[in-house]
């Protein structure tokens, strides 16, 4: 079964509508995308990198696509759960795939910086969008091609040369639809030389009873000596499937920090593909996943060191409860000539219940001798000794487990450099482990189930 077929048909039948409701620079790439798709298939579990998450299956159900851009109402306040106190951001909202500006954003950006609808930008700043759109994400990738075929909007973040944004940007993606819906979103982030920006992205759903599918392609260009931090938090629903592909190109001396956190979701697959093309770059790619029920989280990373004197670190942590499934496959490639590379990767996982499972595949591919690379992966349980120690001090097993899981995530949380956000993230993670204020025992991810026996 090739699930691409339905999307290709949809496009062929509604070609004009798709184009009309988008803009020329986006439309321009559709023909080429179509050509790729006609002889391609979405990857499934027979593909090495998708062994545990079939994109073909993810895209198979019959979702609606809002190609004529009907304005779907959304109650932003009720689904917008990640208001971040002590942190003022410039806020943009994407409903499904349509970007909506907010009052906090209007007129606040100066010096030529942009944070706006990609569709609008493609009309107003066609030249800029044309230059970068599709320049980092390869169309030869079937999933990118599919997104390119159907994406009509999304967001553009553009920071001109030397401009350093003083406030973090925040993009809230909200799914809202009366019927099952697929959204094809595009996020284009361009930092010119010496520019700096911070971005918080969070995914939410208006309701938890509708099936949603998000296809997201993020393209990032980090200019010379630019500095970019992206925090991407998914807090969607068990009926949401997400395939997010982020492609980053780093130029000389750039510093890119990315954090991908999955708190709630159905099936999640995140690809991070970072080409460190310039010299003296620094890359930090961290993430965490807290999974319960039958949640499925798959993070796939690839850092290509193509130049000299670069440094990258990756750290992904998972806590898996119930019958949830975690997948991590991460690779570091050091190309010939990329001397003096230092690259580190670590993946640490805790299985908190009998039916939880973890598949991990850390990889090193090294074609240069002047390197320092390492990776480590562990899968295990909470430290039984620490648990006992805490209980001898009177802390209940449940609370001790929660505290230890929280502590387990500390280094990922602390690696977030946006003021106020790491505290907020700590709080969100704590809530997640505790299952929220009104949670019943068993709702949370602490998974003690009232068991008093610690597994050795």
């Amino acid at each position, binding site marked *: 079964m090739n699930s691409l077929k339905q999307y290709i048909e949809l496009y062929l039948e509604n070609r004009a509508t798709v184009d009309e409701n988008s803009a020329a620079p986006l439309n321009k790439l559709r023909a080429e995308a179509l050509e790729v798709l006609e002889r391609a298939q979405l990857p499934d579990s027979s593909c090495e990198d998708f062994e545990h998450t079939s994109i073909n299956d993810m895209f198979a159900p019959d979702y609606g696509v809002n190609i004529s851009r009907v304005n779907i109402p959304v109650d932003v306040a009720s689904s917008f759960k990640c208001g971040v106190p002590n942190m003022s951001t410039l806020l943009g909202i994407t409903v499904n795939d349509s970007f909506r500006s907010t009052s906090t954003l209007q007129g606040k950006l100066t010096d030529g910086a942009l944070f706006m609808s990609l569709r609008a930008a493609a009309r107003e700043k066609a030249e800029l969008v044309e230059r970068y759109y599709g320049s980092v994400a390869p169309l030869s990738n079937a999933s990118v091609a599919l997104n390119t075929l159907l994406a009509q909007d999304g967001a553009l973040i553009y920071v001109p040369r030397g401009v350093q944004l003083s406030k973090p940007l925040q993009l809230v993606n909200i799914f809202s639809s009366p019927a099952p819906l697929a959204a094809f979103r595009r996020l284009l982030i361009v930092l010119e030389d010496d520019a700096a920006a911070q971005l918080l992205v969070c995914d939410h759903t208006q309701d938890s009873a509708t099936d949603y599918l998000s296809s997201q392609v993020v393209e990032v260009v980090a200019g010379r000596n630019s500095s970019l931090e992206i925090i991407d938090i998914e807090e969607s629903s068990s009926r949401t499937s997400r395939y997010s592909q982020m492609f980053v190109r780093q130029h000389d001396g750039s510093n890119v920090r990315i954090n991908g956190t999955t708190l709630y979701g159905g099936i999640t697959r995140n690809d991070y593909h970072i080409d460190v093309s310039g010299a003296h770059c620094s890359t930090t790619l961290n993430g965490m996943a807290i999974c319960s029920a039958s949640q499925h989280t798959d993070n796939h990373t690839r850092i290509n060191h193509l130049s000299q004197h670069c440094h990258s670190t990756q750290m992904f942590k998972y806590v898996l409860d119930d019958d949830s499934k975690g997948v991590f496959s991460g690779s570091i490639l050091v190309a010939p000539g990329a001397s003096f590379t230092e690259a580190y990767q670590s993946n640490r996982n805790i*299985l908190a219940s009998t039916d939880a499972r973890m*598949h991990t*595949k850390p*990889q090193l591919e090294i074609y240069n*001798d002047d390197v320092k690379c390492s*990776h*480590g992966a562990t899968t*295990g*349980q909470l430290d039984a000794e620490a648990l006992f120690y805490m209980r001898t001090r009177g802390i209940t097993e449940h609370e001790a487990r929660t505290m230890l899981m929280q502590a387990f995530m500390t280094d990922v949380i602390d690696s977030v450099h946006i003021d106020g956000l790491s505290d907020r993230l700590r709080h969100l993670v704590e809530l997640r482990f505790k299952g929220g204020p009104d949670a019943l025992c068993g709702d949370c991810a602490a998974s003690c189930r009232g068991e008093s026996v610690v597994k050795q």
Partner: protein
Amino acid sequence: MDKNKDIETNDILGDVTNNEYKYGFTTDIETDIIPRGLNEDVVRFISAKKGEPEWLLEFRLKAFRHWLTLTPPKWAHLDIPEIDFQAISYYAAPRKKEGPKSMDEVDPQLIDTFNKLGIPLEEQKVLSGMAVDAVMDSVSVKTTHREKLAELGVIFCSISEAVKDYPDLVKRYLGSVVSYRDNFYAALNSAVFSDGSFVYIPKGVRCPMELSTYFRINASGTGQFERTLIVADDDAYVSYLEGCTAPMRDENQLHAAIVEIVVEERAEVKYSTVQNWYAGDKEGRGGVYNFVTKRGLCRGDYSKLSWTQVETGSAITWKYPSCILAGEGAVGEFYSVAVTNNYQQADTGTKMIHTGRNTRSTIVSKGISAGHSQNSYRGLVKVAPKADGCRNYTQCDSLLLSSTCGAHTFPYIDVLNDTAIVEHEATTSKISEDQIFYCNQRGIPTEEAVGLIVNGYAKEVMNKLPMEFAVEAQKLLQITLEGSVG
């Protein structure tokens, strides 16, 4: 520290100066070779030539028919040229003068060959404490110490003889660990395997000497497809060694072997390999393609299987000696040193499949790449849902000696049980310039220093080898890396 293993490096270096591949001679010996090509008739011919029973011919034919449906695996990090399986001769045997019954009857040239390799077949000269089965091209030429072993009930003979003398044992175990359906090369081997060793250690017997098989490819244009089957019954113990060499030839030769090991309750098998097939010349011409399936089934509770390998030869190596840890408390170990130089490629590692409760496994892999070689560790650690209390610790380190080589690590870790503790650590680094400088300052030339450092780096694995092998393996490391610096 075991003093014996602390080898005098200088002596070794003295030994190996000007050394290329010292096993690269051919023996001018009369050989029976069948024409190149593979079809059902060839399979029937091999079976008939060996006077096999009907069931074994059936086994071969099933495997052959299955093989026809397969294509060579492509997933390894290897660049394997298209192999023309019809251009290989599937049977070559030193021509015998009517079945030698004693040493006197073995072709003196054969004895010479193995003497040159340092493998004396005359029992009085054999190192005490080691029994040898020598396999030349496709056929086992001589097994030593058989009678002595027989007193204990230990069976150590060629697999062809085992088929004749112990058909029930062979029938019960052959293909029970590595099915002919397992992979492309396993199917091929099952169809055309020529000879190899058979070992059976009865209940409660600790085999008093190391058992050793020495493999030698001699004839040109042939492949070697040997098959080894080792069964350790309850409470038995055996240490088994495997060595291999081949002549230097410009063409590539195919070696596709299967090793199956069954370990019953509380039994222990140690399997050590020093693989030194011809690796090709400095430009990457020639060399053996070493595509091997090795697997042990730790079927009994508290059984133990330990693989130790030192891989220095072969143009291309594709092998993953594995353990299926099915019995409660079974233990699997894998210690590996893989050295690649010039244009060699190696994709090697292990699989530890934990299906029994409280099973434990340890993996220590040391990769050393030099020249233009590519050296990959590929391993799987899997803990099945019902296998409570399992532990795995994996450490794989890669050492890079040139800027044109590659070192890669591809571990697959699947944990389906929440009581498991699985740890994997890997590092990749260049040989330390500080260490080399320190040696230089003390008057040790760089090349020697590299040898010293590499041997130190690999020591953890080398120490697992039986002593006679450790000496040879250490020399090999040195030789393989010659000319890799500067």
